[in-house]
């Protein structure tokens, strides 16, 4: 497992350039361009289980969801940041991508540290140190547990919740 470390205000253009927004929508189309203008090695070398550490306001900018969809698709285990932008946070939950807001863990991280994440316990280990992060509210947890918003919505529709929503 590798940790990819980035700074503050990593915006959606750095995560996925705007010039591809209307030509790349599926995971396979998105993957080669992930973080293209930020770190050319990322798309080539990222592996399932890798973690991203970043500073404040990760994912700021556009509502484009390709970053969240792509990071989930390449198997990023979690993004750990000092804070996240609102739309990116929502988009990631909707993809079932785990985001951990934990400034202490980001500050503690040193290059050779082994990182372990226990999502259910709300715990992240960075080297010898251990940090806790708050659990998601139940409404968001239900979306994560379903594997993202669309699987969640499909179940809801199948249960006939739709009739209620029309009211």
């Amino acid at each position: 497992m590798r940790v990819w470390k980035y700074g503050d205000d990593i915006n959606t253009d750095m995560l996925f350039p705007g010039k591809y927004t209307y030509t790349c929508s599926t995971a396979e189309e998105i993957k080669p361009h992930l973080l293209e203008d930020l770190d050319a090695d990322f798309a080539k070398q990222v592996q399932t289980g890798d973690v991203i550490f970043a500073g404040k306001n990760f994912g700021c900018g556009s509502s484009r969801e390709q970053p969240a969809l792509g990071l989930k698709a390449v198997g990023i285990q979690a993004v750990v940041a000092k804070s996240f932008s609102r739309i990116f946070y929502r988009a990631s939950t909707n993809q079932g991508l785990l985001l951990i807001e934990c400034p202490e863990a980001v500050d503690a991280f040193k290059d050779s540290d082994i990182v372990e994440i226990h999502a259910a316990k709300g715990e992240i280990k960075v080297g010898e140190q251990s940090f806790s992060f708050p659990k998601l509210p139940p409404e968001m947890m239900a979306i994560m547990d379903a594997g993202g918003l669309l699987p969640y919505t499909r179940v809801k529709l199948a249960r006939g919740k739709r009739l209620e929503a029309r009211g």
Partner: protein
Amino acid sequence: MGRTFAQKVLAKKSGQESVEIGQIVTVKPDHLLTHDNTAAIIGKIGPELEKYGVVRPDLNIIVLDHVIPAATEKNAAGHKTIREFVKKHKIQNFFDIGEGICHQIVYEKGFARPGMVIVGSDSHTCSYGAVGTFATGVDRTESASLILTGETWFKVPPTIKITLQGKLQKRVTAKDIILTIIGDISADGAGYKAVEFHGDIQNLTMDGRFTMTNMGIEMGAKIAVFPVDEITQQFFKSHNIIVQPEEIVWADSDAVYERELTYDLGQIEPVIAAPHTVDHVKSIAELADKTVHQCLLGTCTNGRLSDFQVAAEIIKNKKISSETRLLILPASRSIMQEAMKAGYINTLIEAGAVLLPPGCGPCLGAHQGALAPGERCLSTANRNFKGRMGCKEAEIYLASPATVAASALAGKIRDPRKEVA
């Protein structure tokens, strides 16, 4: 205890007497805006659309604006898919290429109304706070789910109250106010929060208010909102939008705020957001005489009539520098027509400007007016991220229409107060 605008709208829309900060509520938005990305959104839910259809044909507002006319076969195929979806599902509110930028359409056609909740698959959906709408951006997946279910959730945000006092100097604009605020509170200074503007708002036009709410997201805000006043009512009247008094929602005078800021508008100076973040705000003096290779006047941030008016006043009977290019991009067809009638477009074209069709144009780097490595663009748009205009080795500076016009004449960054008409 008084309630903020966000608390009052979310209480009303979730069918509760009152809601607390941090509470999660389920809401059925009045509208869902999507644009060229509609093709990708409906692509996620093909079988579900077949089985269940759309939840409400009047929920969607679809505007083709991001890459118009289509630049590639793939864009064209996306547009075609959207037109077919609109016909098949009898979507009531569809605007094909050339009508304008989605946010301007939602605003000028009267879809955005006071007290409504509107979500959109575009981060600048927050613009409609200019007319007292609770409006915010969501991703494509959430838009897909909304098309099927018509409902979503919100966490009730805390609110920052920004009080504006006094009046702007000549040639200093609302863009300078909002860039100054973002520079002060930073790109995440309003993260997850609502922003309410209070004070001497009678000194701000609707065009100016829209510029400010449009950039709410650039400080991380969930929503940014102005109260409805006489000027808003005049806007409604001139656009044949009938609003009942009971639709209007505003914060209680004793509402509780997380943070309060006050700005003296008379002290605001023309400013510029330097690369590569919107909160990297500098005075013009710090950047004066920097060469600009391309100037962009327009977009959803500053593509309205008064933006073309101020630029035309500055540029009239002059030529833009041969060292730069000026691209002009009205926010909608109707604005383009008004600006033509008023002679502004002709003034700018005579000076050497290139007129682009009403749409998002060069702002997002997908087509039209892309930059080359080493080039510098001075733009009235809302984002200056690295690579935003198609090239990561180019620089984007953000400024007001007055600053862009004055700088286009010189081919260098200039203070618009020094350009006497």
